[in-house]
């Protein structure tokens, strides 16, 4: 499980920054789909926003002990549309890819549309193997957590 060990040395940072060509060599033997590998090697929207900003919603799900932690942040405009989404994930390739794809999915959507995103949307697109379906569930939870945090902030 080398990829997992490597990613654990860099908390909340996506892997490809550290191990560029190595990843597909390692992951190739796991038969991850091309889409998944693509998101893993070239993740979209890695980054962080100011979590104290009033137009930012932050969702943190998972736990290091469980092997996966995802932080997903959204920026919402006055019309309730998600203009920006970023993520940082600590975990396996499928977890990184799931959260990367999640940020792609929600950008440009309204909050209601984003809330309607299901783990199956993510797992089907990435062709996640059975044992990694949980990663897509975690990504769905991360989206919902970010939306909930944003809504909470608006109440205050």
């Amino acid at each position, binding site marked *: 499980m080398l990829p997992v060990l490597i990613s654990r040395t860099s908390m909340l940072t996506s892997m490809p920054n550290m191990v560029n060509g190595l990843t597909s060599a390692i992951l190739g033997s796991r038969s991850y789909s091309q889409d998944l590998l693509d998101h893993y090697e070239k993740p979209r929207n890695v980054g962080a926003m100011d979590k104290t900003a009033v137009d930012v919603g932050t969702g943190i799900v998972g*736990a290091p*002990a*469980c092997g996966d932690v995802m932080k997903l942040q959204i920026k919402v405009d006055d019309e309730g549309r998600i203009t920006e989404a970023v993520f940082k994930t600590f975990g396996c390739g499928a977890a990184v890819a799931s959260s990367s794809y999640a940020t792609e999915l929600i950008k440009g959507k309204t909050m209601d549309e984003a809330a309607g995103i299901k*783990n*199956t949307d993510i*797992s089907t697109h990435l062709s996640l193997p*059975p*044992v990694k*379906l*949980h990663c*897509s*569930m975690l990504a769905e939870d991360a989206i919902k957590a970010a939306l909930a945090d944003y809504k909470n902030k608006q109440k205050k």
Partner: protein
Amino acid sequence: MLSLKASQFIGHNGAFQPFGRIIAAFQPVTCVDSASSSLTHFGRFNSTFQHHTSLHTLSTGLSIFSRGLVTHTAPPDTAATAETLPENVFTSISEDWLDALTCWLEDNDPGFEEIEYHDGVLTFKIPDGMTFVVNRQTPNRELWLSSPVRGPSHFQLYSVDGRPEWIESKTGSNLHAVLEEDVSKLLGVEYPIVIE
């Protein structure tokens, strides 16, 4: 506030021993055949509780345990957590449950393409390549299921009449029932699963 380590609960014979008053021997039983009960140790644990205390279920045993860790009693129908159930006990319970399930699948094989169980991960394939995975998730004291029918779900550990039951918090589904339903659906015939 008392801070108790799991090691304090292991008695001289290596058995889980809350407060030193109750001795329960968790001896994992290797599955011989589906007729023999892989979880009989659970029954022994149960009866030991009955002998030494007025408790009847593991869950109230959990509440005794948690009474030591926090200053209140956990209600008997709460899910096990890392705070209320030591890791080795959880491992033992989940190991036996998954072992019993594996034995059942092996003994009642309708043509599975693969049945593999090791290290707390059970994988079995329906003909046509649909794969089920049931694995232990120790930090959360849960069993995780990946089903080709309904996708991923997490099941927390409860004690119901002294038997371990795995219940999903979101839907209230029981893992045992979910497996029966999903396997039956894919096989096209009713496939009951008996976990002793």
